């Protein structure tokens, strides 16, 4: 069996109701995996960009790309995997902040160049963006202190321009 890998796809679609349902339905109907998904309008209000991380072997992912492109509302499918691209993810982390830990939390937040966006007597909510590795590292550091809850976006990505 060929190894399964993560693939990151950037998909331009018509900005119309139901298009996300078509894309998501394609994945559920054909048994493909969605690891993360991000959708928003582009600078052209008629077009949205879906950034999706999927898992599969080469043949499956080839088929996924073709099936996506076959959807009438899909304009373009870019496979960023293995190319030069920048990617970001954003997490909001609500962390327990008892007096003993407040300074340490702020130090960690500073190291990761993140921002405290909400403060309370018992918690901080921190906004952090970055690569998957960076976010994992930060979560690891905060875990012992006590993470109350997190909300995270899927990955977004853009290809690098050739220099």
């Amino acid at each position: 069996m060929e190894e399964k890998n993560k693939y990151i796809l950037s998909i331009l679609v018509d900005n119309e109701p139901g298009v996300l349902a078509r894309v998501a339905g394609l994945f559920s109907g054909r048994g493909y995996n969605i690891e993360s998904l991000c959708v928003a309008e582009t600078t052209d209000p008629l077009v949205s960009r879906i950034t999706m991380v999927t898992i599969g072997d080469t043949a499956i992912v080839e088929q996924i790309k073709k099936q996506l492109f076959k959807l009438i509302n899909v304009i373009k499918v870019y496979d960023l995997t293995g190319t030069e691209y920048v990617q970001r993810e954003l997490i909001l982390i609500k962390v327990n902040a008892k007096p003993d830990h407040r300074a340490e939390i702020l130090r960690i937040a500073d190291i990761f160049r993140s921002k405290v966006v909400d403060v309370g007597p018992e918690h901080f909510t921190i906004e952090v963006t970055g690569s998957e590795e960076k976010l994992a590292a930060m979560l690891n550091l905060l875990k012992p202190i006590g993470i109350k809850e997190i909300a995270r976006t899927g990955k977004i990505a853009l290809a690098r321009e050739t220099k």
Partner: protein
Amino acid sequence: MKLTGAQILMEMLKQEGVDTIFGFPGGKVIDIYHELAKTDIKHILVRHEQGAIHAADGYARAGNRVGVCLVTSGPGATNTVTGIASAYMDSIPVVILTGQVPCHLIGNDAFQEVDIVGITRSCTKHNYLVKQTEDLARVVKEAFYLARSGRPGPVLIDIPQDVQQKEIVFKNPDNVNMRSYNPTYTPNMIQLKRAVQQLKKAKKPIIFSGGGVIRSNASEELTALAHTLHIPVTSSLMGLGSFPGTDPLWLGMLGMHGTYRANMSIHESDLIIAVGVRFDDRVTGKIDEFAPNAVIVHIDIDPTSIHKNIAVHTPVVGDCKITLGLLNTLIDQEDFTPVKENRKNWLEQIELWKQTSPFTYDQKNIIKPQYVIDKLYELTKGSAIITTEVGQNQMWAAQHYHFDHSGQFITSGGLGCMGFGLPAAIGAQVACPDRLVVDIAGDGSIQMNIQEIATAVQFNLPVKVVILNNQYLGMVRQWQELFYDKCYACTRMDHTPDFVKLAEAFGALGMKATQPEDVGPVLKEGLSSDKTVIMEFMVEQEESVYPMVPAGKAITEMLLA
């Protein structure tokens, strides 16, 4: 010019050349029906919406144009889903018009409301909910374009009642402009030249044709290719008729119930030219053992068909007709004389295989179902349009009737949908009023849409239904016999209606044959009638379809009897 949505719909249907609609009225399409009645468009009133969609499908296949079906919201719409799925699997161009509750009620669980766009998303090529009358003309134009272009398929348009009623200034959309949809018709020539070189090297080539050849009208090009290079041809169930069934190079159908020689030829071949096929599991059997020594050239208009089930060596994305035409031109420019001379051994080998299990049966004192179809073939001189239900009747029809022309064999191939044959025959008869249309049915499947006999009678459609009555759900019974210790769980149907009386009750002609010697006379009389006819044949109850490749086995592992 100010028009209502319903009037705009009629205007657009006329522009698309629609002359027939199969449908069933209801509360949320009254406005459309009100306008329809004022046009010249013929409306065939079915008895169940599933009949409408299958009839539109049969009409599309026999008439080689887009079939149209019109139903109301809610149950009207959901009743078409099976037929839409069938058309989708078989790539048949149909446009389904459904009524919908008014926009302000959508989402409120209104009376007869259903999210049909949501329900059919995965079984249509595309679908639309039209929320503004202003969009309607463009959507209808796009829908017809989508249905018939590229890889054809069903397209559904859901039209809320207020959208039908609103009056606006009608603007004719001049052309379809869809930036995200551009089917590839012309193939990559580098790939095609590779195919030519592979054809030059091949000693044991075979052509495998499918429904795509029929959809793109490429029979002539396919036949020319086979004849020029002396290449034998096999087809999937959907491809029957794409190559003449009486041609000496014809091997018969491939796959689970294919001929011994077709399955052996594919297995032994060193080159497969696969055209308009999708390597369905019913054709390949066990994938790992499919055609182990063959280089595969796969021509198809849909890129997702390529490399989906089988890894191929030379993928060619393009329209079958255009691609085969170009391939034939390339071949004409090369010297193939030595190749053709080399073909003798291969064709001789195939001739030997031909002698194994050539669909034989022993016609003794109980009617054999195969005999009925052989007789039907003989009496119709192979010229009828044949539709089928699904199961043994379908396989015997595929094996024993020989199809010389595209569009002559109409069957629910991909979905395998019982109840398809009769309404499809009605559609085919409407498309081809001068042809003889015969539905080959089983006693089980005919009962799934038997109500459509009333439609045929009402519209003077002289379709002929041949029921092979074995008082079983025969194909499942056959599996139970072979793989489930002969435990015939719930497949016995020993009470079927009196089909003769039933036919008469509908106003059709009913006939029945119980003895082999009756088969010919019943067929002769039934086929020559100008009425809708049901002919029932009491056949050998436990007859099975052979050869048979058990599920999951290689296609060479055929059970021959």
